[in-house]
């Protein structure tokens, strides 16, 4: 039995692990602007009645919604891709950071390791400088064995220290 269980754990996909870790941290509100890489995660979140899933028109809105819900006692996360993150500098600098809101972001990294659109490749290079300039904790998840550790600990630290956190899904994790 134990052997079977460990085999099943090994077969868990990155998005199944993310779903499980969100649940174990009471993060039940999902706001997202879709992305092809995130599609399987979005699909399993929609299918699970534990989660409230909202798909607004823009990433700014998505951040605003989880900010409001946090202040009223409901934990949330925003899913987006790199180009969506690029629309957020003002909102992070004027809302999430100064108000000390634990805004959780999961960003699928586009524009690197095999990108074919030059615009994606350029906007990708703005992501880490913006995150680092704003002092926002960020880690790229590159291996399946790191998904649980990084997601779980970044969520816990964000709420414990009341600061935003950016979990970056590297193509090394999602494209292989």
């Amino acid at each position, binding site marked *: 039995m134990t052997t079977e269980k460990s085999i099943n754990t090994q077969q868990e996909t990155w998005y199944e692990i993310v779903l499980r870790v969100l649940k174990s941290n009471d993060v039940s*509100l999902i706001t997202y602007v879709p992305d092809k890489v995130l599609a399987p995660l979005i699909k399993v979140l929609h299918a699970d009645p534990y989660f*409230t899933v*909202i798909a*607004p*028109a*823009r990433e*700014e*809105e*998505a*951040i*605003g*919604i*989880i*900010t*409001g*819900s*946090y*202040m*009223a*006692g*409901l934990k*949330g996360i925003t899913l987006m891709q790199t180009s969506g993150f690029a629309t957020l500098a*003002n*909102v992070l*600098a*004027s*809302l999430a950071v*100064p*108000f*000390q*809101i634990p805004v959780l972001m999961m960003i699928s990294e586009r524009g690197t390791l095999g990108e074919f659109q030059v615009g994606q490749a350029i906007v990708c290079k703005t992501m880490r400088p913006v995150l680092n300039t704003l002092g926002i904790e960020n880690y790229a998840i590159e291996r399946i064995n790191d998904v649980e550790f990084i997601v779980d600990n970044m969520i816990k630290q964000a*709420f414990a220290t*009341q600061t935003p956190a950016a979990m970056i899904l590297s193509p090394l994790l999602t494209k292989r």
Partner: protein
Amino acid sequence: MTNLTNLSSARENAQIMNRFELIKRLTSKLHANEAVIGGIGNNNFDLWANGQRPENFYMLGSMGLTIPIALGVALAQPQRRVFALEGDGSLLMQLGALGTVAKTALKNLTIIIFDNGMYQITGKQPTLTDSCVDFVNVAQGSGLTQSYWARDNTHFEQLIDDALTKDGPHFIATRIDDKTPTVSTDRDPVKIRLGFMQALSIHR
């Protein structure tokens, strides 16, 4: 009264009122710890000037996010009524939010728009509502069926009464003058957030 409410929704039929006075009429009707989210600039200055209710949240930057923040609060606390106070320039930045409000269909959410057709705080440059955009038409087209121009102060109060007793989402647009608020909000983000969360009984 229902018949009056259903009269023409056109912006030009709405009387020009005053933001401070309208917020006063709103807050005087709030007796159940309703949450109020004040949009940037003059909207939250006049909210502040009307008495600093602990259930008020004053947004200091992030122009256009008043409605999404209010939606998040309303979603987390369905038993509490939530009001978003937003200006015309701000709403024009985030029109998609109206569709999100319609789609989520929260019964406890009301949007109040103060429209003076200008970016008042930056030098009174005209906004698009001054020439061609009608917010009630936009809201209705976004799926918010209960969307009205407040024709005058009395009608505004009737619409607030509806928002406090009937299922939303509600959208109330007002035309206002360009009178400058007499005070401005204390700009201490963490103090604002903690006070608001405490008023909403959230303790981390």
